[in-house]
Structures are given as structure tokens and as C-alpha cells.
């Protein structure tokens, strides 16, 4: 079992060729505006006229809708149902047993569920169109310490290795008669023989790896060069400043309207 540990799909689209930082600003912009804007229909508007066109511009509609059905819809759907049934309110619409649906709970549930939908969608969109190492090398070039890039990239490599190691350990312990399915007590008892070997085994490798990267100048403070150049066009800069302006406007309008 070798799971691919990144959402990224390689396509040739305008969204893919944008600079990673621009896409990150776009994501943060969508999320912040949906939370800050005082207008009730903002999140719904942003889903319809922000997320959906962007999916088609990025040519990732098939992967996005897959992720939507698997992750985003269940999460925001359950959130919506829980909130509509259980948030308190004044104006009752109807009532079944202990469950009361009110106008307040309905409007709040719609807003919260759409915001979550929008937030997770925009992150998914970002991850579908941006390769993690591209993002990291761009951020490192802009001054993020190299250690952070090392941590993120090597974690993405270590997790699948460790998952397959975990599978091996589970299979090995089961074949020796370890009970992982019956009573609660047995399952708690199974935790130590599964977690122990996995964790101790992976910690042993740490020292060797530390020596290896130390020998390759990991802690050197000199400026490092990069093998790949990541494009940052003037369009990127215009988009970024435009988005920042929009974010500021929507946050300001919230405070302005709340004050009046």
C-alpha cells in the first residue's frame, strides 16, 4: 500500500502557472472575506462566482468533485444538520420531539456550513494546483528558513513510509495472535505492541539522518541556491495586491457597519 501523500495533479492551466504565493493569498482572501464581510450572502456568492469558475480555470474539476463528495460535502452537511437541529432560536418553524428548527438556527446553519464549505474548498483547490515542494522553494526564496521547508517536505515523505511500516507491524502482531477487534479491554491492550515497535523503530533512524544532513551543510547560514526557478510574473503581483486590497476593504466594512 503506497498512498500518494499529496492532492497535487499535474495539468497545464493558468491556475497551475501562477506563483504559489499568489494562490496562497487567493485562498486566504476567500476565507477572510467570507468571514469578515457583513453581507449575508457573501459566502454563497463566493462559492458560486469564486470557487466554481476557478475549478474550471484550473482544469481540476474531476479531482475537485471527487474530493467534494468524499470530504467536503459530508463535513459541511453534518455540520449543517447538527446546527439546524440544535442551535437555539426564537422563531420556531417546526418541531419534532426534542428537535426544534427555528429561523435563527436555519440562517446560522446556512452561513456556517457555507463558510466551512468555502474554506475547505479553497484549500483543496490550492492543494490540487500547487506542488508542495514548489510552494516550499518559493517561500524559502522569499526568506522562510530552510529548516521549515525541510520539515514539511521530509514529513510528506516519511508519513507513507511509516504507514506501510504500521501495516506490516499490525499484520505481524495479528499473525502472532494479537487481538485487534474484540472487546474494549483487548483493543486497549493491543495499543502498546502496535505503537511501541513503530515509534521506537522510527526514532532510531533519527540520529543517522541528523549526521547525514549535518554533513551536507544543513546548519550552514550561507545563502543557498536553488535548482528550479519559480516564475513570479507581474500579473501575480497585481493579483496579490488586488486581493490584499479586497481583504482590507471587507474587514474595514465590517467594522464600519458594526460601528454605525
Amino acid at each position, binding site marked *: 500500500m503506497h498512498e500518494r501523500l499529496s492532492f497535487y495533479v499535474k495539468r497545464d492551466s493558468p491556475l497551475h502557472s501562477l506563483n504559489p504565493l499568489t494562490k496562497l493569498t487567493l485562498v486566504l482572501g476567500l476565507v477572510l472575506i467570507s468571514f469578515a464581510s457583513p453581507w449575508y450572502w457573501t459566502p454563497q456568492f463566493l462559492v458560486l462566482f469564486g470557487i466554481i469558475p476557478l475549478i474550471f480555470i484550473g482544469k481540476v474539476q474531476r479531482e475537485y468533485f471527487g474530493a467534494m463528495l468524499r470530504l467536503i460535502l459530508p463535513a459541511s452537511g453534518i455540520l449543517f444538520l447538527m*446546527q439546524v437541529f440544535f442551535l437555539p432560536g426564537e422563531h420556531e418553524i417546526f418541531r419534532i420531539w426534542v428537535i426544534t428548527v427555528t429561523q435563527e438556527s436555519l440562517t446560522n446553519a446556512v452561513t456556517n456550513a457555507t463558510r466551512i464549505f468555502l474554506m475547505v474548498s479553497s484549500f483543496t483547490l490550492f492543494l490540487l494546483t500547487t506542488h508542495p515542494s514548489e510552494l516550499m522553494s518559493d517561500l524559502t526564496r522569499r526568506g522562510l528558513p530552510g529548516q521549515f521547508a525541510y520539515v514539511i517536505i521530509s514529513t510528506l515523505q516519511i508519513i507513507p513510509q511509516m504507514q506501510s511500516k504500521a501495516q506490516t507491524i499490525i499484520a505481524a502482531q495479528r499473525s502472532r495472535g494479537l487481538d485487534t477487534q474484540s472487546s474494549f479491554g483487548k483493543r486497549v491492550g493491543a495499543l502498546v505492541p502496535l505503537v511501541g515497535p513503530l515509534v521506537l523503530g522510527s526514532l532510531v533512524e533519527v540520529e543517522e539522518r541528523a549526521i547525514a544532513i549535518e554533513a551536507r551543510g544543513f546548519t550552514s547560514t550561507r545563502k543557498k541556491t536553488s535548482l528550479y526557478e519559480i516564475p513570479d510574473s507581474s500579473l501575480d503581483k497585481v493579483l496579490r495586491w488586488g486581493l490584499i486590497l479586497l481583504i482590507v476593504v471587507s474587514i474595514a466594512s465590517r467594522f464600519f457597519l458594526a460601528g454605525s
Partner: protein
Amino acid sequence: MKFIDSIKKDFNTMTWVLIPVAIAINVVVGQIVLVLKLPVYLDSIGTMLVGALCGPWAGALTGALSNVIWGLAIDPGAFPWWPVAFFIGLVTGFCAKGGLFKNWWKVVITGFLVALTAAIVSTPIGVYLFGGITASGSSFITAYLLQTGQGVVQAVFSTNFLVEPVDKISTALLAFAIIQGLSRRFLARFPRPENVEIETGATRTQMFIAIGIVILLVLFAAFVLVNILS
């Protein structure tokens, strides 16, 4: 600058190499727990390991990056919870620095303090981002408390306070057991091996005092909770 120096002390090459492994431990052990269908998460063992061995700021960074990775690779909905993981690592680090990671009952206290912090930090996120009720199972408790006429903040906080301690205390104990399984030569290469040196000798009186303090803390927390509820 004493403060900057104490942050710098947390990070040597061993720390930077341990962090990715710790994040992977968080993720993979979290998934093993799902396979075993246990009613806890145990998804911060690695964070607590780093917090105890390398210091508070390294632990905090591990926690925060752990959520970023979780969001990048598994579920993009995990991003907004990063401050909770950040504080789990930070508090573990400070507890370990204060000597609360040296034998099992001290580790229980660490777990309890971490749980309290996690409950406090996750409350505003749950309330302002998700409107109080999230899609997790424990939200049924929140929903019940809301139906009894409580405010959203109180309901969310009480739920977190009921759920967190069991999870965080078992996480801390597991992390402690793992550290005890490592050789002293290996531990000595991390920035703060003195945090986890096991204590032996006459600690019985200390233990009774500590149990007394914990009971007092729990009573105090219950008192505060009852006051908020009424």
C-alpha cells in the same frame, strides 16, 4: 537576550530531524487508534515527545506544523485547529522544563494541564469558526447543553473540558513510556535530556501532595464549571 537564547536552545540538528518523525508519529498513531476503534484521538504523541525532549518552542512548532501537514495531505479541514496543537506542544514543554515529566504521576499532571489548555484554546475556534457545533461526535454533548439553555461559549467549553483530559493524559503517559524505552545515550543528543531523567528514591510524600493538589484542581474546575452552568 535570555528569551531568544532559550528558544534557540530548543533547536539543534537532532530537533529538526526529530520534528518530521514526530509529525509522522502523530498522524500514523492517530490512524492506528482509528483502526482499533478506541474512543480517544492520541494524535499528539509526537508533539509531546518533542516538547519534553527538545523544549516548549520546538514542541509548539511540531504541533502547528502537524496540523499544517494534516491539512496538506489528509483533510484540509484541519488547518484552523493549529493553535490548539501549538499550545499542546508549548505547555508540555514548559511542564517538562519544570520537572513534570520525570515519573508517571507527574506525567498525569502534565496531561491534565495540557488538556485544560487545549480545552481553553479550542473553545473560541469552535465557537467563532464553526458556530459552536462541529461535525465531531462530542458535539452531541454541546447540542444537549445548548438545549438546556446555556450560552454557546459555556456549552463548547464544558464539552471540551469533559472530552480532553482522558485523551491528553493517556497521550502523555504513552509519550512517557516511549521515552523510557529509549537509551540514555540516544536521549543525551537532544537539547534537554535532563527533562526526562527518571526520578527514583523517596517520592511517596511528594506523590501524596501532588494527588492532593490534583484533587483540589479538579474540585476547583468542577466548581468553576458548576458556576458557569448555573
